[in-house]
């Protein structure tokens, strides 16, 4: 694979992964504000 083509693929993969991660974090922030804190604390990892 040519270097420029590969770089394009890397940027695409990073872009998609970044977009999914940002969406995940935004969902988590929004869900955290509305969640049941009793269940949130009950499911804590120890």
């Amino acid at each position, binding site marked *: *694979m040519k270097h420029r083509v*590969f770089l394009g*693929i*890397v940027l695409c*993969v*990073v872009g998609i*992964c*970044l977009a*999914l*991660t940002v969406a*995940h*974090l935004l*969902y*988590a922030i*929004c*869900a*955290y*504000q*509305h*969640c*049941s*804190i*009793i*269940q*949130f*604390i*009950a*499911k*804590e*990892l*120890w």
Partner: protein
Amino acid sequence: MRLSFRAVKQILLLLLIVVLFAAFNGSVYMLLTGRLSNNFSGTDQSKMVDVKKFLPFESESELARIDSSLKLTEDLPVLDGAAALVPVYAAIVDNVYPKGSVVYEGGVFSDDNYYGENFAADSKMQYKNTVRGYRAIVDGETDILFCAAPSSEQKAYADEKGVKLNYVPIGREAFVFFVNQNNPVEDLTVEQIRGIYAGEYTNWSQLGGANRVINPVTRLSGSGSQSAMDAFMGERKIAPKSPLAVVGASIGFSFRYYMEGMVGDEGVKMLSLNGVYPSAKNIRNGSYPIIAEFYAIYREDNENPNIPVLVDWLLSEEGQQIVEESGYVRIN
């Protein structure tokens, strides 16, 4: 087809990128997202309280039932209240109001109804919970609201509308703090709790616990429990916490019966305060240090003649029996 060494390296690099993102998101899911049961998403809804379990006039409802001497037949005040007080005001309707005065239309979530509980507009029992309930009593949509003390914003809203509200204490309840059941901490002092929320203690090891960051959880502004928390903190301000604290070991607050009797407390445990556990006995004898009163609230200018009748009855032996049998502590 044989891949060149360079191509193999390129594929491995792409895989590494994907794996790193997957590992990061997987960790966030394990530590945070997987623990969030929210009540706003169309696919993952959990009710604050299952009102269906407390509907009046249903034989299987979990309501206190007494031989009431008061029976109202007309000018029925519309009752509304906080999630934690649904068992109390539903029991009042059940014992005092005529059958047919409540029309429950089932649970349907919408943008302005996070609680997903719907009563017909002419139903004498409604459920708007604290934040919307305070607006409803000020706006004249509700006759008697059953709630904890109002927040400063709720008081300001009534003042702004020129409405005077009467607050009649009808029962008491412990304001409790809780942690995960595996957290080794069992007891804190009142000052230690204030210190946690003021940002003075940030790790449980400072309080004799595990070496984990403290996540002091707060509630929706204007909710009954958040208003009680603000009152508990007094002059001290709740400090902003580090975003990373969200994956630490949490401490939260609520009213005792709400978490113990209504929503369920599986997986969490209530903390003793100053060495006193929030049992019904310790609330009654006054040894538990944080007791909150809850109120029957009505507009002073409301001319419904049955409001004072119902409020007087609530303070009578029969009304107090309803309060007690609903899981709370009587006021007198």
